[in-house]
């Protein structure tokens, strides 16, 4: 597990309705890990964890659907 993945899992944990999957490509929405409001709070948590403000234009669910997509987005933004 990469440091970024660990950071993401820690940021999502307070808002996860069920255990976060190991599969980084699994949909957090379809599994029921995050509902709409959990996603809203999780994005705020991720912004704080990575020190990155997600622009409004990027604020779409598909960017945050899987652990892999979240890592790709935030590591590219933080770079």
């Amino acid at each position: 597990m990469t440091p970024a993945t660990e950071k993401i899992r820690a940021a999502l944990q307070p808002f996860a309705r069920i255990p976060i999957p190991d599969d980084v490509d699994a949909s957090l929405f379809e599994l029921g890990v995050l509902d709409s409001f959990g996603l809203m709070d999780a994005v705020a948590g991720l912004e704080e964890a990575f020190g990155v403000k997600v622009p409004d234009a990027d604020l779409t669910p598909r960017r945050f659907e899987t652990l892999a997509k979240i890592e790709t987005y935030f590591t590219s933004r933080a770079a």
Partner: protein
Amino acid sequence: MAHLAGLGHALPDRIVPSSELAARLDVTEEWILAACGIRERRWLSDGEPAAALAEKAALAALSRAELTPGRLGAIVVGTGSAPRAFPGISADLQRRLGAPGAAAFDVPLASVGGLFALALAVDLCPRTGPVLAAGAEEMSRVLLRAPLAKETAILFGDGAAACIVAPGEGPVSVVDVRLGSDGTFAGALSLGHDGPLEMEGRTVILQASRKLPAAIRSVLDPQGLSPADVDLFVLHQANLNLLKGVARSLGVGEEKLFVNVDRVGNTSAASVLIALSEASEQGLLKPGSRVILAAFGAGFSWGAALLRVAG
């Protein structure tokens, strides 16, 4: 400068409790409460149009403003569920009020329509005289066009509200109004002429949770005010969870939120004006207080208004 000279609202008599919807949607009442905090909403009866509710609301607002319909300079109705493409509910309302002559038009922006109507009224009234800004919805008819979908059926209710906006200062003055839109998201919340309601719930929540606090700060910052300086937040009653999220984002306590979504559901364009009317009736617009109105709806579009109650 403009002021709110009178408020009124009207709800259908028919109460639809979440227990009734739970049975129809094969979910539990607890699931509905957790998802949106709505215990019951009002739906129109067969043959009862939203324009009839708008008329009741308008007459109450006119009475409180001590005006007759003939004095209106314009009629602006926010809606998302007008029963035909044109003319809008505003035409039916004008006919019902017996006030021909003044410009009457709809603002079809769904949940933010009432706030946009109010904002337009603020700008129009110095030129036209008192303007009737209203929100009127028959969302239940939209829901019932197709088999009920739990994601939307649990949310929406019917209702109407009206506000007389007049030039100059008054008991409740409009200090500032700011509006915005981003057509990039037009497809995320839309309604075709005969189609079902299309709503990407996660996108709506994500964008609303960002745009609402920003809109509120956009009317506070120029006044040198912070959210802590606001006495009452009257927000579009979309969903109890969203209201609480906006309060957290602003760093204000939930006790400053006006909440009626649990009783009336999400009445879309009528929502923020129904909430303001109820808050007024409950004596919550206290002398000297600052009140925020804010809403988010189709487009996406959003806005906020800062009100000051005379001290």
